[in-house]
């Protein structure tokens, strides 16, 4: 699988992660399936419902239902989610894997001392409980 994302949107995710530092940011990737992969068309930043712990994020079902209906009206759907790992590598934690859904792309951006340093995307193995890296294709804007 490949996740294609315009450079501008990836920058936006980096900035979102930097501004949320030292807490985590989270949001949905809106787009459409494209052949073997997925393409991100726009971002949908979400409210992090976990306020008790800066190292956790939660997008609640009511928020997702609303967002899903909104995107459908635009002919889009949720193709994945992004979140930041403050001062941790951009690899899924055990907690990420345990709560992941199949098919979606999980894009993680590492924020080191307040600066975004790397980003990577993963998908859940259909058999659980593993996440595989997927190729992240950054589309440079012309």
């Amino acid at each position, binding site marked *: 699988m490949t996740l294609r994302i315009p450079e501008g949107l990836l920058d936006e995710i980096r900035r979102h992660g930097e501004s949320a530092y030292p807490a*985590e940011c*989270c949001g*949905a990737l809106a787009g459409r399936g494209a052949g073997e992969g997925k393409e991100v068309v726009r971002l949908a930043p*979400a409210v992090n419902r*976990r*306020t*008790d*712990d*800066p*190292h*956790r*994020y*939660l*997008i*609640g*079902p*009511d928020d*997702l*239902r609303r967002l899903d209906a909104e995107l459908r009206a635009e002919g889009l*759907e*949720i193709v994945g*989610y992004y*979140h*930041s*790992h*403050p*001062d*941790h590598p951009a690899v*899924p*934690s*055990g*907690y*990420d894997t*345990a*709560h*992941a*859904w*199949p*098919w*979606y792309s*999980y894009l993680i951006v590492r924020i080191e001392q307040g600066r975004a340093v790397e980003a990577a995307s993963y998908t859940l193995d*259909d*058999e*659980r409980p593993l996440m595989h890296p997927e190729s992240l294709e950054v589309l440079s804007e012309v």
Partner: protein
Amino acid sequence: MSVTVTIPTPLRSFTGGADAVELAGRTVGEVIEGLLATHGGLKRHLVQEDGRLRNFVNLYLNDTDIRHLRSTETPVSEGDVLTIVPSIAGGSPGSGGPALDTELPRLSHAEVLRYSRHLLLPEVGVEGQRKLKAARVLTIGAGGLGSPLSLYLAAAGVGTIGIVDFDVVDLTNLQRQIVHGTSTLGRPKLESARDRLTDLNPNLKVETHETRLSSENALDIIREYDIVVDGTDNFPTRYLVNDACVLLGKPNVYGSIFRFEGQASVFHAKEGPCYRCLYSEPPPPGLVPSCAEGGVLGVLPGIIGSIQALETIKLILGAGDTLIGRLVLFDALRLKFRELRLRKDPDCPLCGEHPTVRELIDYEAFCGIGAEPAYQGPEVLVEQLREELDEKGPEELVLIDVREPHEWEIARIEGARLIPLGQLPDRLAELDGHAEIVTYCHKGSRSMKALEILRGAGYGRVRSLAGGIDAWAARVEPGMARY
């Protein structure tokens, strides 16, 4: 019943690409069972090994989350739409609660044996027992409610129990405070409780906080725990515990008792009302007597405290329907439980839509304590009264006992007349306006109220016995029973 189950995009590869599946069943649970039977690949994504739904899987029947209905027991009707909605969760490995199974502490062989009756319950099981072991519960008070609830939490295998108390064990406690004993009389309640609880379960870690909970220390103490259980007996602390729990987002398992009646609820502002939604203002000071003034049946805190322990354990396990949004009222004499539905107050100053209380306040002042000085009339010391009674006849010096008849049965001062405080305004005609009057009660506060009534009615030569019959028994008549 034929129900349409809509399948979210991430799961469509397990339904052959279909975005909806028609299934039959009488309840949500049966429909889901049918779905898993026909599309087995969904199983590992939707349910845990024990068959329960994963915590990030949400089901909506038409437009309502089934958790707000009867969960998987919710009946379905022809044409209903059941929608699977994801919750999306994650986070860096930094911290977080022990939400992930592999992060929970493991059980030793001895613990497996000790908790075997729990492990046999599918609702608890090994995972639930490990959650109990990981849990940190704070109980406010090691008294009537704190005793049974801390004993049951310790026995159930809660890993860490914090206790806030600053009192010592007193003989009047032992009629109901079963965590203490005759052998621990005079010792701090914290030490007494810790010894008993760790004897019951040596795996338990007890954290003691020997202090009065206050606006200065409450947030720092409560922050360290997952759940707070309120076993206090006074309004300022009850509001303080509530407010601190709302500000920190912690559930507050509430219980209170008086005479033969008790109540219990779970206040968790994230999911339901808080104590202020139920009682926005405290009662006027002195209106509601404490158990020390009004008495309490010893077994009553056993029942209410056990309900609090039960709710705490359910919150930890995530099992069953908790008392969030419900107030249970228990009447011991009639053996009746009643239930009131509680609603979150949108105007609640603490957890409403526009909160005005954003930090802890002065709760003594909020509850009106110390605001209006109580009536202060002339008093007489017990030794002085002894002498005066010897010198003067009963016509000259009238001694009025303003306690209740059942207290009169326990002990009385010879020569006194019983006129309970509540009857005094109607029985003034029985009193000779020319005689000197001394009023007394148990410890001196009701007799001061009696003085206020007598003074208001024009009686000039009235005094109250300082320290009441309790001081009399201690200093004048040592053979007299105290209570």
